[in-house]
């Protein structure tokens, strides 16, 4: 009769013991493994399966972005192959085909039809008002953050988690300082990530208006990207184009027009739409041409 109670007490004791042990040992782990923080306990407890958990929490963040409207493994996932929240940040290319409104398909039978009243069945986005279409609550995107943070803690080697999180923090929540800290944390874990450097540059440029630091960071990102082997480069063309065009824009605004043209030429090499870039080059060249005659006049 007493056995369930004893089991619960044992569980509680075990829990307390584990927490105590973890608290006791974590400083030691820290000193054994060097400076890396956060990931260690997970690493020890979960081993490599932590990546899987990290991925599932990353997907959970996307489900939160849809207020719980999300296909299960049995549903048609055509329209949910890449995370919409990551897509919106420009972190990934869209790979979504099907109709987003109908991953459930037509109603199969009365049980299915009846069941659909009891879970989220409308496609909405948190930053567009969510299920109540109440636009005043667009800051509700904060709700996806815990899962992103957890995902980053579990798998600190995935740069995308940091860039996507930083984007939402900075763009929608206006939490620039937090985004800054988080990106630096990501950079510590992924020193070679041009993605994180790019996002960091955007933060310096767009939020702090610190052109010099943005330029440094982006140029560093270009150098990191250049170090990739040919295969990796051809897989990651989008981000290179983004970095170089941002650099070009920065130089153009700063008045270094030739440098801007150089960056655009670099971008053209990987771009899918080189003619669009050509048009920008032509525009800048026109601007330069307009400037040159004026300059000598001032000399005299």
């Amino acid at each position, binding site marked *: 009769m007493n056995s369930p*109670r004893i089991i619960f007490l044992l569980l509680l004791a075990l829990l307390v013991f584990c927490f105590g042990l973890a608290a006791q040992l974590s400083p030691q782990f820290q000193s054994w493994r060097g400076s890396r923080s956060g990931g260690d306990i997970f690493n020890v407890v979960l081993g490599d399966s932590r990546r899987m958990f990290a991925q599932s929490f990353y997907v959970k963040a996307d489900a939160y972005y849809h207020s719980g409207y999300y296909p299960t493994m049995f549903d048609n996932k055509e329209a949910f192959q890449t995370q919409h929240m990551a897509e919106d940040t420009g972190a990934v290319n869209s790979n979504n085909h099907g109709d987003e409104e109908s991953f459930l398909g037509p109603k199969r039978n009365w049980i299915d039809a009846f*069941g659909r*009243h*009891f*879970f989220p069945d409308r496609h909405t986005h948190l930053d567009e008002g969510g*299920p*109540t279409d109440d636009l005043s609550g667009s800051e509700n995107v904060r709700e996806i953050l*815990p899962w992103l943070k957890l995902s980053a803690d579990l798998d600190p080697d995935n740069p995308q988690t940091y860039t996507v999180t930083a984007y939402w923090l900075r763009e929608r929540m206006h939490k620039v300082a937090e985004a800054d800290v*988080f990106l630096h944390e990501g950079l510590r874990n992924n020193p070679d990530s041009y993605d994180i450097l790019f996002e960091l540059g955007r933060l310096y440029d767009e939020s702090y208006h610190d052109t010099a630091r943005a330029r440094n960071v982006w140029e560093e990102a270009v150098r990191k990207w250049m170090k990739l082997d040919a295969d990796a480069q051809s897989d990651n063309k989008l981000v290179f184009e983004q970095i170089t065009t941002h650099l070009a824009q920065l130089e153009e605004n700063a008045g270094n027009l030739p440098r801007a043209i150089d960056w655009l030429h670099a971008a053209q090499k990987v771009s899918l739409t080189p003619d669009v870039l050509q048009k920008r080059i032509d525009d800048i060249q026109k601007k330069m041409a307009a400037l040159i005659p004026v300059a000598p006049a001032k000399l005299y």
Partner: protein
Amino acid sequence: MKNIFAVAGVVIKELYRRKDFYVLFIITVLICLVMASVNIFNDPKIARYLKEICLLLVWISSLVIAITTTARQIPAERENRTLLPLLAKPLTRPQLIFGKFFGCWFACGLALLCFYIFFGALAAAREHQWPLLDYFQAAVMHWFMLGIVVAMTLLGSLVFAAPSSNSTICFVIIGGILFVGRHLDQVATSMHEPLRAIVNALYFTIPHLEFYDLRDLIIHNWPLIEWKYIVLALLYATAYIFAFLLGACLVFRRKPVN
């Protein structure tokens, strides 16, 4: 009727005099408070992850309470032989079954009330709103789902001899229904006959407990469900509860007790 409630009263007394519920409740509260104290990007308004964790714990605890309490009722009566003086009174066996059912079900209801009040307080602390009707819908649906679980476990406790094997089987069946019940017909399409027909038949006969899981709706502040669907779902649950209890009465009717 008074006999049924007399039996139910003893079950409820048993639940609140045992410590299981308090332990589960305290663990839930502690975990939620620890989770609430985590600093996420200096934003104290983030609420939904907390609501989700809290509701997950509430669901697990409620299933544990419902199944373990119910599974030991009749086996314990047999083992301690309290069934003998009880049935020697003018109490019919169906009355005993219904009494045990209502006792476990009301006890679960009381536990749920505590859990949902805590959940409401936790959510209100973060979101500064009390969508009482939404919580009411979720709690009532949850409670009726537990009704099905209790009735099913009660039937199981008469069919399977050992309470532990009965609890395990009930956990597996109920977990299975909650996770794949909704998709069994899709699973069936990828199978060959006769398995396909069996899985399809299963799809149409099992109680679809996943209807009663409104967690996503209240976590993400969805609008209320239309009441007529709630009423229909409750009727559906009642039908299954009666079916299981009837089954239990039939099994128990001819069973020698000694």
